[in-house]
């Protein structure tokens, strides 16, 4: 990005400079000095502030408000109190989609975290090749839509190469995305394929912070790679792993694209994940109020999980002094 400034250079009093050096980060410093950079800061923050208020803060509040209304987009929202929530609690499809979503998240995050960790450690201990890291990241460049379509083809029961190989091994063909039991694990694994490389690179970056001396010292003491992994890598990677886990779980709960492309919620609601159900309620049945209530439920669930994970994994504390 090349942006040039046309403003003439303006001089600042020297004491402002020393002030900046001695009292760097407290906002009080600016207040004590009087004006500080108030006007300039206002200009610099204004666009981001506008975006924040209009497209993040206001929609969040509005989403919560809409969850207490009946709203079909054409007529003004009508306050109905807790009706949507009462309906949600008694809606078997809602609970079913919650169950499907949780199942998806467990498989997706379980497989992805273990694989990403394995890839990251292999990248760290085996080679420092940037090319390999580039290759690992490639699926991340695809959209979920592309990943969904490609795997739909590879796993096609009759013509897909995946099932050709299975049949070649003398096993029964598996209707991966058309079978109620297989559909969710399959979608979870498709998304692992797309995201595992990025997750691995984040963990790899975390591994880079572990001093190499530790491994060298352990090697001198005759420790095996396996032992070093459990005694050095895992304990020191924990804070990074915890934050990555929180991020990926939040992302995982929002699964929509792959389902929309590969199964449309089927077969028989087997992949009707929460986000897909919410979308259908809003844009298929125009129940924006009810859809908002379910969104709020998801928000609450996500906040609770984040909080719990943060506490359980002590994500904020590092063991690396």
């Amino acid at each position: 990005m090349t942006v040039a400034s046309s403003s003439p250079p303006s001089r600042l009093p020297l004491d402002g400079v020393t002030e900046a050096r001695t009292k760097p980060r407290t906002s009080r410093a600016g207040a004590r000095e009087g004006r500080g950079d108030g006007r300039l800061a206002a200009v610099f923050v204004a666009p981001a502030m506008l975006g924040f208020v209009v497209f993040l803060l206001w929609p969040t509040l509005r989403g919560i408000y809409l969850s207490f209304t009946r709203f079909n987009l054409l007529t003004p929202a009508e306050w109905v109190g807790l009706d949507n929530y009462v309906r949600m609690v008694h809606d078997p499809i809602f609970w079913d989609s919650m169950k499907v979503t949780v199942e998806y998240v467990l498989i997706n995050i379980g497989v992805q975290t273990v694989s990403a960790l394995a890839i990251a450690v292999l990248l760290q201990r085996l080679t420092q090749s940037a090319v390999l890291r580039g290759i690992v990241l490639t699926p991340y460049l695809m959209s979920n839509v592309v990943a969904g379509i490609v795997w739909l083809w590879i796993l096609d029961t009759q013509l897909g190469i995946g099932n050709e190989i299975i049949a070649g091994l003398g096993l029964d063909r598996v209707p991966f995305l058309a079978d109620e039991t297989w559909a969710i694990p399959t979608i979870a694994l498709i998304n692992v394929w797309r995201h595992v490389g990025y997750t691995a690179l984040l963990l790899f970056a975390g591994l880079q912070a572990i001093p190499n001396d530790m491994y060298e010292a352990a090697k001198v003491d005759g420790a095996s790679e396996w032992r070093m992994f459990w005694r050095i890598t895992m304990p020191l990677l924990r804070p990074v792993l915890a934050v990555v886990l929180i991020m990926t779980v939040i992302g995982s709960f929002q699964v929509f694209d792959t389902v929309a492309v590969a199964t449309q919620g089927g077969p028989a609601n087997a992949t009707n994940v929460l986000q897909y159900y919410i979308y259908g309620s809003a844009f298929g049945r125009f129940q924006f109020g009810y859809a908002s209530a379910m969104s709020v439920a998801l928000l609450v669930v996500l906040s609770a999980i984040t909080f719990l994970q943060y506490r359980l994994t002590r994500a904020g504390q590092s063991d690396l002094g």
Partner: protein
Amino acid sequence: MAAVTASTTRTGIRPVRRRLSPGRIVAWAVMAVIILVTLLPFYWILRTALSTNSALAAHPGDPLPVDLTTGGFERALGLQSTKEAIAQGGAGGGLKFWRYLINSVVVSTLITVCQIFFSAMAAYAFARLRWRGRDKVFGLFLAGLMVPTIFTLLPNFVLIKQLGLVDNLLGIALPTMFMTPFAVFFLRQFFMNVPREVEEAALLDGAGKIRIFFRVMLPMASTPVLTLGVLTYITAWNDYFWPLMVSYSDSSRVLTVALAIFRAQTPQTGYDWSGLMAATLIAALPMLVLFGFFARRIVSSISFTGVK
């Protein structure tokens, strides 16, 4: 929070020992399997796109393209007549590929350039300017990180509809055009770590803070800005849910949405796999090329900063 930073100093220090032990051989074998699983689907896309549908049905397991043809690409690009397309197993309704490509480019560019520029400005103000309430406002931005994007989509759709921007490229770009809490947070981290002496030297030379931002800070941040930019571009390019909500017609349709529609137009005879894979490849290619240009810098600058 996951992030990208310019600190890559640690790489390269490590002495790599190239002694082959049984353990290392097993590890390399595992790595080979991982690479294979990662890359084979890409080959399979190409192989399918270059085959005809009838040959695909006859030889599903053949590792090479069967009955080599560019028909799939022609169908995806809408170059074939409807009759021709249907005869080759297509649905007849091609993609207005160039239209969608331009739409995707416009939306992704608008989002990336504006978002990063505005976020950088705000990040600089949070990192280096002194003003009342700075930390409180920044705290508010940080709290925004906690709201899942998906939660804001429905209300944002209502808003975009009220603004009359549904089915408009600007409507697709607008919600992420000004900032994301992550971009602000991440760039602020970078600016905080720029030595103050750099800024002070410029101040002593008589430069104003605006000038310092554009002439000193932004150029110094070129690596993180580039990495953040490419990742933002990829995210915008690959986004499906939001464009699906706000675009209804060709005029604002982006590639991801078009691709999903192309997939849904199943002809009577079964899927047009050849055409679908060709379309998939065309939609993904720009990102592969973009990444190809910057891969080395991006891969070594994906890094990690903890939210405190």
